[in-house]
């Protein structure tokens, strides 16, 4: 190959690549880009709705883009999503403070605010509210409860799930089975290695004891409280006695390898698909074991609009349309998607329309937990993701026995306090 002509070809290609402009909208077509972490299967009902909206509003094109959950906020802040700016995001509420501080979100217009206040539960509205201001339309609401394998409990001689950490330890100890190498074949109680399962479970137990992990102003932690210490100590005891370990994972519950774990309601989808017809007779839901009055943690997502979007009014219109009741059984588009995933919603109309699909004991238990006193929203604290990861680190150190629970919580309080002190 003659090098000169090859080089020219390369230069041409390079030039093409470099100047590849983002797909720009035709003069008469408005493109609205929606970014969520939902995969193709989960977003399918919404996509059908998108097509319907396009048919009803000619000149509009709606595109969905999936962004990985772990990278979502960095993606919005740094690289923007895809090669063209995104208009609508499905946001985890704890991402909001940072996004708002960098002015990445568009405050909703007044009609949208009115729409939300009229149609959503207070808990959901609270999750989409930061600093007394509403920033979007609430989407899914998730709540944690103890999920247990009825068969495994019965086989170990227990007919009721644990109500306190002591009972938890006793029941889990009876269920745990190990192979001759000492590795767990069936785990009585499972945590997990992901941030959600380590830190959120800890928060849930704190809320169950009615001690929030952070002060109301979001500037200090309550990690040095006796409650937090008791919670972590009892969790650590499970590890110390070999009842659970880092290799006993909550994801193994579906396969029957785990007796109990704290999980969010959206696991219903996975559990049902793996257990099939044995779902109802195997899976039980109970309040989180606690020495306190009882409670749990709620966390939520909401739909927000990018401040740099070139189609803001259209985006808010689309969102309002997606969250208003439609023909099929009165569910909104969002409601249909959430119902398909086994998710719960804060939309009143959807909640009542979903009653058919949520009549099973599993969903009913979670809905009851949502409405019960003691169910508190995860606080939208400053740099929440970083703080969660830091707490996870110290909790795991305590579990591994490398630090005492008291030392771990004190260190966590110090490091996290320093981060919280940075906020404006």
């Amino acid at each position, binding site marked *: 190959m003659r090098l*000169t002509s090859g080089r020219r070809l390369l230069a041409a290609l390079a030039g093409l690549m*470099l100047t590849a402009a983002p797909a720009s909208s035709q003069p008469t077509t408005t493109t609205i880009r929606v970014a969520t972490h939902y995969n193709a299967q989960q977003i399918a009902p919404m996509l059908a709705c998108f097509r319907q909206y396009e048919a009803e509003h000619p000149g509009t094109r709606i595109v969905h883009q999936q962004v*990985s959950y772990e*990278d979502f906020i960095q993606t919005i802040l740094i690289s*923007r999503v895809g090669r063209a700016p995104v208009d609508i995001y499905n946001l985890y509420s704890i991402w909001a403070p940072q996004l708002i501080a960098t002015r990445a979100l568009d405050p909703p217009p007044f009609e949208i605010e009115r729409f939300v206040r009229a149609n959503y539960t207070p808990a959901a509205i609270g999750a989409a509210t930061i600093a007394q201001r509403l920033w979007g339309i609430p989407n899914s609401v998730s709540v944690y409860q103890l999920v247990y394998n009825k068969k495994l409990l019965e086989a170990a001689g227990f007919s009721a799930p644990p109500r306190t950490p002591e009972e938890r330890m006793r029941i889990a100890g009876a269920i745990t089975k190990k192979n001759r190498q000492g590795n767990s074949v069936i785990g009585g109680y499972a945590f997990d290695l992901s941030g959600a399962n380590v830190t959120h479970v800890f928060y849930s137990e704190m809320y169950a004891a009615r001690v929030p992990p952070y002060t109301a102003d979001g500037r200090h932690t309550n990690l040095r409280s006796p409650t937090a210490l008791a919670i972590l100590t009892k969790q650590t005891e499970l590890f110390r006695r070999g009842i659970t370990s880092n290799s006993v994972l909550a994801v193994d519950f579906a396969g029957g390898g785990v007796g109990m774990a704290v999980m969010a309601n959206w696991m219903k989808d996975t559990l049902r698909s793996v257990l099939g017809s044995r779902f109802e007779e195997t899976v039980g839901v109970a309040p989180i074991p606690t020495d306190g009055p009882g409670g749990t943690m709620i966390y939520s997502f909401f739909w927000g609009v990018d401040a740099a979007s070139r189609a803001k009014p259209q985006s808010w219109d689309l969102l309002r349309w997606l969250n208003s009741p439609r023909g099929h059984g009165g569910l909104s588009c969002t409601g249909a998607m959430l119902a398909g995933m086994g998710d719960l919603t804060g939309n009143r109309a959807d909640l009542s329309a979903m009653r058919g699909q949520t009549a099973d004991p599993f969903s009913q238990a979670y809905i009851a937990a949502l409405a019960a006193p003691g169910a508190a929203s995860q606080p939208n604290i400053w740099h929440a993701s970083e703080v969660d990861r830091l707490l996870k680190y110290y909790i795991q150190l305590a579990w591994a026995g490398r630090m005492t629970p008291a030392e771990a919580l004190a260190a966590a309080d110090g490091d996290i306090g320093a981060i919280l002190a940075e906020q404006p």
Partner: protein
Amino acid sequence: MAQPESPTHPARNRGALLGVLKYTALALGAVIMIFPFLDMFLGALRTPAERLALPMVYWPHHPQWHNFVRVFTELPMLTWLANSILVTSLITAIQMVTSTMAGYALAKYRFFGSKALLSLVLGAQMFPFFLLIIPIFFLLRFVPLAGGNDLLGQGGSGLLNSYAAMILPFAVTWYGIFLMRQNFLGVPNEIIDAARMDGAGEFRIFATVVLPLVKPSLATLGIFVFLYHWNEVIWTMTVTRSAPDLQTIPVGIYLLRGAFIDQSTFSLQQASVFISILPVMILFLLLQRYYVRGLTAGAVKG
């Protein structure tokens, strides 16, 4: 390549025993090298039921061959494959061009700054890539008038989420320049001078006279670069995290890990991983002769 034969020790029983030990050791090591791939292959063939059995069933009784097909139908493997081919080929081509040109100039010319450039080439290899990831990422983001940016480079995403971002930071390889320079040093100056006297311009000399003389090391460099960048993960991942349609095979598989959270999808994940290593393995098996030949042609000595 010199092939030292077995040492000519006297034929004793001990010699035969040592021979057996030697081949046993090598075979054991080979098993350790190969078996993990086999394990992955078997994992791709298991059914969810076999996975969930206690203990897990190791040899699949009903091999799920269709998992390998599912990789292409349920995952964007073809997109990933196309991206891998495109990006790796471009990087390889560009690096070959820059390495040969600069290597030749540094070998055969004395020009202002050549010593400094040579020191840069040698010294630059000392800087680890992690030092460059953050600044290059943001320099690409703030390129003016690109990706929606204004004149000051604000507002859009710059060159991020583009093939340019995946390729440009790898346009030059210091090691490649060094390697080619070593090779060009071995080209006799007489040939070049003769061509000059015939009136040929420097570029023509380079392309038609000198380059053909270093073809083996060109092949080596090309294969080395291609293999390395086909498998490159950290930079590609950093710049395509939010652009799924640009992701290469390893990056795509890794960033989809959230979708493989339970036992029923593990086999699919293992199948996709297995597919991801096939192209390179086949390529390597076919071309490794050239790679090794070029390596031992005096390039690798300390």
